[in-house]
């Protein structure tokens, strides 16, 4: 058995939340530069210029890219041959430490009293047990301007792929300027109510714009992106072509009576940091 020390998890998670909030991933940077050229609207082009300048300043001045430094969503892949003690506690300690030290905004509150927990914990932790001797932790600070625009629908199978596409477009259209477009659209298709929501979130952890390895899913992603980018919402909703940077779809077999579809929206600040132990 390979042992991973909890102190190491605390330290690396703390550093990862801070970096995720302050350093725009290279891939997102490149996607912005490409989109700036492709966007026909002058104000839309200006938005990309400002977002690139913002990312540069954030890194230079050690400031968060966005003041909504999110609720910490953490995906864990735990290898069967890894021994670790107090994993959830270590992750939460790391999150609390990173938000404090990095001067990130603490945005987690009790849903009934609205009292801020003061530490940005608890994190939302998703755990998968996988073969092997690696521990992988994906740190995904999720802003709620975009999270709030997400939706789930239990479609009848008769709605088919057309119904799925209509629903995804409806969610994006209703969201309009609210989730800080250009967005990434995470779609969870199939499974059950909660599985679809999980898949939609998981889809957003894929490198931005990387197509799904399965051809029929990659085609659906491409078609959805093209259709979304005719809605006219554009960068920050000021009108234009680039409403979405990418559509990521994940699927899972579902019940013969069911067609769950979940749409999870990510704002342009696609912040993410992946750790491996």
């Amino acid at each position: 058995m390979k042992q991973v020390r909890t102190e190491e998890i605390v330290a690396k998670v703390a550093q990862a939340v801070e970096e995720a909030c302050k350093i725009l991933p290279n891939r997102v940077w490149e996607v912005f530069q490409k989109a700036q050229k492709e966007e026909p609207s002058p104000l839309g082009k200006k938005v990309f210029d400002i977002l690139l300048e913002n990312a540069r300043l954030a890194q230079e001045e050690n400031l968060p890219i966005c003041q909504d430094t999110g609720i910490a969503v953490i995906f864990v892949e735990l290898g069967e041959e890894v021994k670790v003690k107090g994993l959830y506690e270590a992750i939460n300690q790391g999150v609390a430490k990173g938000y404090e030290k990095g001067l990130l905004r603490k945005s987690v509150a009790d849903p009934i009293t609205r009292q801020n927990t003061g530490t940005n914990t608890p994190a939302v932790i998703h755990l998968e047990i996988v073969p092997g001797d690696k521990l992988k932790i994906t740190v995904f600070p999720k802003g709620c301007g975009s999270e709030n625009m997400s939706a789930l629908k239990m479609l009848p199978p008769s709605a088919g792929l057309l119904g799925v596409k209509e629903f995804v477009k409806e969610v994006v259209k209703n969201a309009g300027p609210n989730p800080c477009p250009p967005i990434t659209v995470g779609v969870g298709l199939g499974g059950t109510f909660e599985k679809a929501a999980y898949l939609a979130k998981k889809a957003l952890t894929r490198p931005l714009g990387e197509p799904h390895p399965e051809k029929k899913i990659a085609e659906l992603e491409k078609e959805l992106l093209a259709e979304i980018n005719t809605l006219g919402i554009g960068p920050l909703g000021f009108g234009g072509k680039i409403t979405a940077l990418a559509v990521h779809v994940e699927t899972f077999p579902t019940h013969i009576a069911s067609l769950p579809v979940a749409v999870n929206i990510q704002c342009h600040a696609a912040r993410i940091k992946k750790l491996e132990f």
Partner: protein
Amino acid sequence: MRAMEKKISFPLKDKRVLEELHAGDFIFISGTLLAARDQTHRKLLELLEKERPLPVSLSGQCIYYVGPTPAPPGKPIGSAGPTTSYRMDAYTPALLAQGVCATMGKGKRSQTVKEALLKHKAIYLATFGGAGAYLSRCIKEVRPLAFEELGPEALLELKVEDFPAVVINDLYGRDFYEESQEEWAKILAGERT
């Protein structure tokens, strides 16, 4: 009418300045803004309901929907971009009635807010969502006014210089989000056929 670049300073002494602003105009704001978001609005409305004095006069003010990150040493404020405005819709008409003449955030407003804007001759502005580091450079001074116990939701006065924004809802009932989306949807539909 083509969009124009204009300058404006808050709080406004003469609200007639707003007549010159049109949906789609790019503006630069100087003077002071009041920073307030969800819980701050709830608290202000509680004071109004109890007929207690407000911590600051709202006459001619522009409320900026923001919950900044903590200020690093040597800086007045951390990252300070706009939050989504519709969450303040329930509170906005009451504050417009108190003399607020502009609000600024990101995203659409409700029909009720749009009607209240027309009634009270106020405008709605959007600034650059997710550009918190960029916008923080336009904020020169920060003064806490009330509700400091709310942390990132405290009521603050922000002294700003050339803070950029786009006019969304003007005094003439126009909505830049709706107009521009419609215009671009038509252009893009033309490209496809």
